[in-house]
Every structure is written in structure tokens, then in C-alpha cells.
């Protein structure tokens, strides 16, 4: 079953076509990584799929809900962890989690259990009553991702989730993301090749707003005739520049 069906998705900004007729199907429970150099259209694609930006042309259906005609339905089933840490600085960790539960309309009955379970998973219990702005960058990112999961989304967008984090925290977050695989559909963007290779079921390489390759890491290496995943990516990207 497809969780996401993207057809001819296009975004034109004046003289720049950020996304150019993108077609892509993503299965339910799959983790797919969107790779590409800066400006390839990854973030714009996520913005359109999460109803932040309206496409110039084309459409996408998320669990059957059109981003054009049913953004309300889409917003009920998705969660986004943006590239930058997205937290309320003067609220405590617990209050940040409660904020997200509240905006998704959870009742007081179900909210505490969900929050407690997520705080346990993300190891946030030790900083529960600390204001978010006083946390280190790694803890803020952890909180930011945990906040995206409060609503138990069917589709989760992780936009560069480990950007700027040290290797230990990055690996810890990988474990958290691995634990989510299969429970929801995850669309991940990243510049870290090893991250994409380690976590993804499939990879979509974007260049100039188009998906030039979609498949597994092994298929990507074979298709590019490269020795490693990173080499395969560079070859695919360099083709773009020729």
C-alpha cells in the first residue's frame, strides 16, 4: 500500500524551478531518504508535502488525502521535524511536549501516557522540567524530534535531523529512528551519506528538482557503477552538473 503518491509535483519560484514534475510512490512503513546537493529541491518537496507551500503544478496524496484539496486531512496524519530545532524556548521540555499534544487535540486522558513513553524513548526524563532554551544543542534536537512524534503520525518528515550533532548523539538518534521504522512512513533528508545508507529502505536522489534515481543503496551503487555509496551519489550528482 502506498502512503504517498506524488504526481507531477512542481514548484516554480519566479525564474527558478525548485521541483520539476516529481513522480514518486512511497510505501507505508518505508523509510526513504531524499538526497541531493543544496538546491536540489529536497526541502521544497517536504514543504509541499506538508502543506507549507502550495505546488505550482501537480499533486500528492498522503494516505489518500490530497495536498491541494484536503490540507486539513493531511495535517492530521503528518508530523514534521524541521531542519532547524523547532521548540518553544521558555517552555520546559514537558510543556513543549504538552504543547504539541494539545495542538493535535489529544485529551488530558491520553496525553500523559504518550508523553511519558516518548520521554522514556528519547531519554528526556532527566531534563523534563528544564526550560528548552537551557538545553544543549543535542538535547534540543532530541526534544524537537520527540515533539514531532507526540501526535503519532502516519507520515513523519525528518529534515536533516542530525545536522550539526556530534557522532555519539547522531548514533543515538539513528537508533531512535530505526526503532520507528515500520511503524510509520518516514521521509528523511540528509547530507550525511552514511546516515542515508544506514537508515534507508530506499533512496531517492534529486537533482534540479527531479528524482534521477530511486532504489535501494545497493541498487544505487550498481546503477552508478561505483565502489561505494558516497561515490555513487557523487557520480549521480556530477552527471547533473555536466
Amino acid at each position, binding site marked *: 500500500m502506498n502512503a504517498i503518491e506524488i504526481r507531477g509535483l512542481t514548484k516554480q519560484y519566479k525564474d527558478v524551478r525548485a521541483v520539476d514534475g516529481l513522480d514518486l510512490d512511497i510505501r507505508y512503513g518505508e523509510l526513504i531518504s531524499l538526497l541531493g546537493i543544496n538546491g536540489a529541491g529536497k526541502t521544497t518537496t517536504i514543504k509541499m508535502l506538508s502543506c*507549507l507551500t502550495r505546488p505550482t503544478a501537480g499533486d500528492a496524496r498522503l494516505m489518500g488525502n490530497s495536498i491541494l484539496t484536503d490540507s486539513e486531512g493531511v*495535517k492530521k496524519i503528518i508530523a514534521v521535524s524541521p531542519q532547524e530545532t*523547532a521548540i*518553544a524556548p521558555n517552555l520546559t521540555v514537558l510543556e513543549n511536549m504538552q504543547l504539541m499534544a494539545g*495542538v493535535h487535540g489529544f485529551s488530558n486522558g491520553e496525553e500523559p501516557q504518550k508523553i511519558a513513553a516518548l520521554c522514556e524513548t528519547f531519554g528526556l526524563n532527566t531534563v523534563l522540567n528544564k526550560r528548552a532554551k537551557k538545553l544543549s544543542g543535542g538535547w534540543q534536537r532530541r526534544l524537537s524530534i520527540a515533539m514531532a512524534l507526540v*501526535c503519532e503520525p502516519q507520515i513523519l518528515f525528518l529534515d536533516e535531523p542530525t545536522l550539526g550533532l556530534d557522532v555519539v548523539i547522531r548514533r543515538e538518534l539513528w537508533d531512535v529512528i530505526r526503532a520507528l521504522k515500520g511503524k510509520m512512513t518516514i521521509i528523511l533528508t540528509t547530507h550525511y551519506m552514511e546516515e542515508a545508507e544506514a537508515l534507508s529502505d530506499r533512496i531517492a536522489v534529486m537533482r534540479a528538482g527531479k528524482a534521477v534515481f530511486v532504489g535501494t543503496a545497493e541498487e544505487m551503487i550498481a546503477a552508478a557503477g561505483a565502489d561505494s555509496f558516497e561515490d555513487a551519489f557523487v557520480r549521480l550528482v556530477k552527471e547533473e552538473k555536466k
Partner: protein
Amino acid sequence: MRAWIISRRTAKEILRDPLSLAFGIGFPVVLLALFALIQASVPIRMFEPENLTPGIAVFGLSFVTLFTALLLAKDRSSALLQRLYTTPLTARDFVFGYTLPMIPISVCQVILCYTVSMPFGLTPSVRIIPAVLLTAPVCLFYIALGLLFGSILTDNQVGGICGALVTTLSGWLAGAWFDLKAIGGAIEKIAYALPLVHAVELGKSALSGSYDGVGVHLAWVLGYSVLAMALAIPLFIRQMKRQ
């Protein structure tokens, strides 16, 4: 219900910000103390508490514009609003969420200003109650300005425009600590074409127990408040769509 969630967050963000407390509460109190000190050292009655307090109360509300605009502009520059825009929250939830908590905060600020004025010579009286109530409508004007500037300016620009320009203009155009009629000319005409001095007049009328012209002053204040809100809401929604 969802607007209430955002409202609670707005209130917490502002009340937990030490700068908000320092400026919103501290600055008007310092001004009242300063004018009381000046009054004590001059032989003529320049700063009567009955005239000064309504002016400082209105002037103090200009910081509400600063708090509202700063919070919104910071939210816009961070990824938090972007995240919230991907949730089922509607534009109405956001507008109420940023506006509603500022009303009690503003009223508390006005009450505090009148309370602090008492040790400096304001006669405790039941007239203070209508004075506070009649100052309340101008809160909406300042909140709307905050929503408006927060929707179009960056947080750095808000600091300059709301932190310096709006507060200074408020002091002058409200006639917060001087009689505009004594200045006269264009400044008086401009001030009386704007709502702030009318808000001050409302407070003064209530304190004096004379309600002549209250309807006209109230109409000026409410008219501008509605106008400012009517401008601020579409600008807020426009920036929301731009995200």
C-alpha cells in the same frame, strides 16, 4: 480549545522572559518614581498623580506592542511556527493565541501602574476601578500593533521600531507626562487625531469623576483598535501563507 493551547504558551513565553518583566513592570514604575522625585524638588505642581498616572499607564502599554511583536517575529524566524503551521491549527487559532493572553497581561500592567502610583500620591479611591476599565480598550490597539509589526518585521527590526520608535511616540502622542494643549500646534493636532491621548483622557476623566466627552474619547480608541486589528489580521495571515 487549540487557540487556548497557543494562548497558554504565549503567556508563559512572555511572563518567563525577564526583559518583559523588567520593561513592562519596571519601566513605568521607575518613571512614576522619577516624576515623584522631580515633583518633590520643585515648588510648583507639575506632575499631579491624577494626571500623570493615566498617562504612564497608557505609555506602559506600548511595551505590550514590543512583547507581542518580538515573540511573533522570533517565532517566525525560528522553525517553531513552521512546525505549528503543519499541524491542524488554523489562522484563527494563531490570531487568538497571540492576542488573548495579552489582554489580561495588559490589564494587570495598568492595575499595577495605578497601584504603584498610590505611594507616590495618587489618592486611593473607587474611581481607580473605572479608570482601569476605561484604559483597557487601548490595550487592544497596542496588541494589534504588536501583531502587525511582528508579522512584517524581523526580531531585530522589532527591537528598533517597537522598542524605540513606538514607545517614544507613545510617550509624546499620549501626552503621557505633559499637557499636549500646552504644546499646541501640529503636535497637538496629530496627537488628537490618534487614539493614545484619548485613552489618557479616559483615565483622567474617570479619576476626576467627570465623564464629559468620555463617549467621544472611547469612540476614538475603539475605532483605532478595530482598524489596527483589521490591518494586523490579514498581514498575519499573509505571512502565514508565505511560510
